């Protein structure tokens, strides 16, 4: 890497995590640049969700370190960051999109309130401005503005997921973690959501760490891919290279197990 290359946005070194002696993530290192979409794929129990939770600070690694380049350009070690500062980071410069929108939304607060809450975390105080921004974001995620006062409980699964995305993006984060964002949705709803995510990620220049077991989702959204099995990284590289010319036996099995529609 030459001196002109900016430092990575996120850099993880030798991350390991065990649950009661059973390793879920073993010596994983990776880096992510600004605007880059990285997919972590693997089957259930491969450790991909553990890795996502480690990277996003939701879990503390047993060993290893994670550095994040702050807006001032200085890379900071997340483990050494005061808890309050880390939480502020998670509420403003990061987003986290859960598979189950109920985990990422306040189900008893209106859609407008769900978006407005994140804005208030970054100092938004003016009610009219917050409401206008919320309305704008509802439009961007293709939710009719007249639904702004409805609670997410009154929304369909696809709408909840789009609302969760709006809530995450309203603070202009640079990095968004996504855990199976299209999982559990009907196929037609999935296609619409994928297209929406693809467009927003490109327009906003977001960096994304995306966990999915769906290789088609990884192909559509990601630049690079990491294949995990039993906590190890089995293979990594350019997304289309890994999917079209997989090298590792496990990756070949995974790719050849997908039914072509």
């Amino acid at each position, binding site marked *: 890497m030459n001196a002109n290359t900016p430092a990575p946005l996120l850099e993880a070194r030798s991350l390991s995590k065990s649950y009661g002696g059973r390793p879920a993530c073993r010596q994983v290192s990776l880096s992510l*640049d600004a605007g*880059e979409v990285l997919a972590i794929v693997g089957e259930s129990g491969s450790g991909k969700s553990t890795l996502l939770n480690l990277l996003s600070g939701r879990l503390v690694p047993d060993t290893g370190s994670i550095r994040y380049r702050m807006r001032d350009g200085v890379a900071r070690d997340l483990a050494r960051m005061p808890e309050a500062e880390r939480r502020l980071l998670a509420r403003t410069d990061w987003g986290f999109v859960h598979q189950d929108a109920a985990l990422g939304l306040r189900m008893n607060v209106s859609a407008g309130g769900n978006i407005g809450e994140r804005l208030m975390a970054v100092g938004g105080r003016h009610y009219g401005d917050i409401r206008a921004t919320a309305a704008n974001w509802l439009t961007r995620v293709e939710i009719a503005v007249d639904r702004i006062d409805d609670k997410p409980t009154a929304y369909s699964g696809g709408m909840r997921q789009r609302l969760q995305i709006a809530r995450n993006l309203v603070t202009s984060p640079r990095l968004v973690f996504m855990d199976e964002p299209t999982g559990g949705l009907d196929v037609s709803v999935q*296609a*619409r959501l*994928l*297209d929406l995510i*693809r467009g927003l990620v490109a327009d906003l220049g977001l960096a994304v760490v995306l966990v999915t077991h769906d290789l088609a989702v990884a192909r*559509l959204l990601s*630049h*690079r891919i990491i294949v995990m099995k039993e906590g190890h990284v089995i293979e990594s*590289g*350019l997304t*289309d*290279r890994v999917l*079209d*010319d997989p*090298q*590792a*036996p496990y990756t*070949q*099995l995974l790719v*050849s197990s997908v039914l072509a529609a």
Partner: protein
Amino acid sequence: MSYLPNRVALVVEDLGKSFTLHMHGGARLPVVANVGFAVQAGECVVLGGPSGAGKSSILKMLYGNYLAGSGHIRVRHGADMVDIVDAEPRMVLDVRRRTLGYVSQFLRVIPRVPAIEIVAEPALAAGVAHDVAHERAAGLLAALNLPERLWKLPPATFSGGEQQRVNIARGFAGEHTILILDEPTASLDAANREAVIGLIAARKAAGTAFVGIFHDEDVRTRVADRIIDVSAFAVQVAA
């Protein structure tokens, strides 16, 4: 590295590839060995040879889509020569954005995205302004005789030939300095084959280097400056 004249866009040296099929007892499937050729700016090199000789695999290695087993693929990328074989994924993506385009045999349809957006996307990715990219996309779709009423529709419901014309327009929209063509005219009628030949000629005149596969004899002889018989790179199997 050896001296390379300015006009050289792409140099392939000792390129080799075999597939190891782990699902089938680790069987090794040799594809090509010792592939070597160079392509100048403004030149169109066509890969020839029988089906199964490895033509498509070579194109996919040039694009970084297949992993080369050995050798080098040096691409003039701005002021640098980048070796696709050992470049970092990020560098390969940058080469694809600014230097190296690829027209596949089939359009990979993205749900809900209109034809004109699909075509404009590589130009936008290369940093071209929105209006210019859309003008360029419209010009290409018009040159390829795609009816204007289809431009704002997603191509999922288009015919095979219409989808392929969207695909070709997309490939040309990036105005890359090197363009890889994998049988782009296979599903086109005579008038549209003619349109593609015209597009290739115009880009060659502008200095684009082409590497392609064309099964249509007429198209091949009209676009090719040189034909390389890929069967010369067949893997020698010991008796």
